[in-house]
């Protein structure tokens, strides 16, 4: 009988293979393969099963690697902006936000107020889109045959229509520029956003009635995939996963980047760190995002939408040569801490460009969360980690 455990493997739980005790059994190695309806993209998990219990899990990623960092090192700074859209293709505005912040830090560019407010509005709308779709996909993995997905996508459609009005494209927005945003929002669009924000709490009410106290959901999600806060902090997990384990760390409050310090909102924290907590923390975060949006829409000032010094570089991006140096900027993307690290050597192309993708870092403790659980739970835990393969593989 094969034994694949090493001595340091199971520090957290004492776990005994059933076969060690009485019966000579074999373990089964399966691939939850790259083509699978429940993995969120082309992602493989190599699982060693004993009966139905997971003994070892190895995530294998890289099926969607598109060379994003190397492409960016060969292009001018502005030409990389459409490529950052495609990293986490569900929340393109947040990706643009991080990149724009990093270059502005590198070249010390200031952003006018109206542009900052517009950026915050777009980022929070993206957070709504992402969390609501994620809950839909989690329930799809659980087997609810697409109904929560369709309800979630009803709201998502309205927000994507706003993105299309503002930037020209529903998902690959390419909207932020260094020093501001590309085009202005008209009064009609602001009215549209206000209408969405007004209708959103009612939708969340309906969504919660369908899901939150559902006994089957609770049976499947509570006490599954528990992540202890010390392990989460040591493994540099960020985002809703960290907050569901009880650690109070949200970049919007810690870094106070952009104009987030002008809005009053709270950070929801979970207590157990299981799948149910991650789901519910996301719902509470959506409530908080609605609060931020209401405040931002009320206070948005008139003014420039792009720093005047950057205007000539819009027509000639090849001439934008920031000073020699390096910068790291991070935003609270809906999935976690999205960080960009750029090293500039004075030419129009960056010397080194690196993206710290939250989905990739959050995947590293998938094994620790799944050991000792059943195979069905492993799929649910993967769904709650919230990965997008575009980000995991750059």
């Amino acid at each position, binding site marked *: 009988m094969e034994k694949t455990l090493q001595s340091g493997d199971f520090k957290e739980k004492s776990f005994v293979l059933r076969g060690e005790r009485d019966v000579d059994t074999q373990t089964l190695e399966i691939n939850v393969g790259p083509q699978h309806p429940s993995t969120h993209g082309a992602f493989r998990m190599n699982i060693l099963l004993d009966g139905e219990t997971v003994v070892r899990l190895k995530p294998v990623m890289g099926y969607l690697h598109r060379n994003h960092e190397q492409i960016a090192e060969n292009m001018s700074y502005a030409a990389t902006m459409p490529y950052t859209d495609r990293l986490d293709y569900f929340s393109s505005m947040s990706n643009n936000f991080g990149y724009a912040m990093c270059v502005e830090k590198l070249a010390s560019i200031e952003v006018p107020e109206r542009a900052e407010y517009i950026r915050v509005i777009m980022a929070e709308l993206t957070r709504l889109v992402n969390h609501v779709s994620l809950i839909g996909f989690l329930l799809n993995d*659980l*087997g609810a045959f697409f109904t929560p997905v*369709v309800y979630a996508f009803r709201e998502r459609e309205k927000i994507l229509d706003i993105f299309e009005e503002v930037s020209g494209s529903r998902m690959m927005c390419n909207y932020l520029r260094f020093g501001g945003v590309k085009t202005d929002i008209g009064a009609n669009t602001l009215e549209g956003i206000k209408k969405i924000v007004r209708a959103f709490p009612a939708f969340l009410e309906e969504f919660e009635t*369908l899901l939150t106290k559902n006994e*089957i*959901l609770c049976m499947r999600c509570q006490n599954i995939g528990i992540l202890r806060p010390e392990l989460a902090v040591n493994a540099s997990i960020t985002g809703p996963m960290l907050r569901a384990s009880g650690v109070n760390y949200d970049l919007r409050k810690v870094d106070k980047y952009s104009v987030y310090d002008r809005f009053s909102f709270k950070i929801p924290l*979970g207590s157990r760190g299981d799948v*149910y907590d991650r789901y519910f923390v996301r719902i509470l975060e959506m409530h908080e995002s609605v609060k931020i949006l209401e405040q931002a829409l009320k206070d948005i000032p008139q003014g420039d939408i792009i720093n005047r010094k950057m205007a000539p570089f819009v027509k000639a991006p090849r001439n934008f040569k920031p000073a020699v140096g390096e910068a790291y900027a991070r935003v609270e993307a809906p999935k976690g801490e999205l960080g960009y690290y750029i090293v500039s050597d004075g030419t129009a192309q960056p010397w080194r460009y690196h993206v710290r993708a939250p989905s990739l870092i959050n995947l590293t403790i998938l094994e620790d969360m799944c050991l000792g659980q059943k195979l069905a*739970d492993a*799929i649910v835990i993967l769904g709650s980690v919230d990965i997008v393969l575009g980000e995991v593989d750059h």
Partner: protein
Amino acid sequence: MDQLFVNLKNMALHLIGVFAPDWLVSLSSILISVGAMTFLGIFIMMYLTLMERKVIGRMQNRIGPNRVGKWGLLQPVADAIKMLTKEDIVPEPADRLLHFLAPVMIVIPALLIFAVIPFGRNMTALDLNVGLLYFFAMSSTTTMVIFMAGWGSRNKYASLGGMRSVAQMISYEVPMVLSVVPVLLSVGSLSTGKIVEAQADLWFVLTPWGFFACVIFFLCGVAECNRSPFDLPEAESEIVAGFHTEFSGMKFALFYMAEFMNAFSIAALTATLFLGGWQGPLLPSWLWFILKTYSLLFVMMWFRGTLPRLRADQMMGLAWKFLLPLALVNILAAGLHLYLGGPAGFASALIILLGSFMGLSKVNRSYVPEKREYVLAD
């Protein structure tokens, strides 16, 4: 109007009896019934698939299929043509005999059950004295056939799905049979025709034991058909499609047909046993039967569109730890109601049942959602 189909059949038999000997008339009587059942079975199944897709579509705020024919009415025909023209692939190491027999053997019991269902007054094809026992026997054969299908495919995941399905079906047989016992206590016969006639005054679902028995029977029946929320062996669970992975084309169509025919039989039997069968004022009896059965089928599709799936061990735990004790207590409550009679019996049965329901919920704490506290920090 009420006896429309019976009169039609009698007219046809008279017509044959004019120029044919007696034995031919009785043979053709049997053949007419069998032919009607078969045609009915296939027709029901085809339009049930369409009804399911449209109902679930409407629940999800979208239109179901509506391109093929007006309102999608020719969609099942298109599906049938598609399934017939697919290539029939048998994996090389598979057991050819089992692989061939499994789809056939799963449809046969599903069709045979139709013989004891009372479609209307005097419209049971075969009014056996042991009708209900016949139904349980037929539905148990399905269990073995599913295991045959999973085993004969010689595929890790198919046999895994097959074994899970067998465990599920065996677990849910027991509460199902036990929940029907109160009905037998009340009626005193196993024949489905007599059960319906006994509900002329009061449908059994309106008594406390009948209500609980109806719910238990319906849930167990949904589990027997491998439908949501108990569809772990069949739907795209963690791994592929379970026991019918390796079947394509017409074989898969036969599995699909069997599932829907089983669902129809469960709905029909729930209507017969608890909801009064074809009893009802004003409308013809077969129309009442169709209304009751199709509303139960709507409930099944409603469950499918809303609820997530249960995990294998939770599902079996639900059957053994929750439904089985409840079914046993139900028999006691039914006995009390029938023995004491009147309001005293009604009240005592109700109290016992509600008490045991609460008690079982407390005991099975792992199935009840926990209360969670969430902090909103700064």
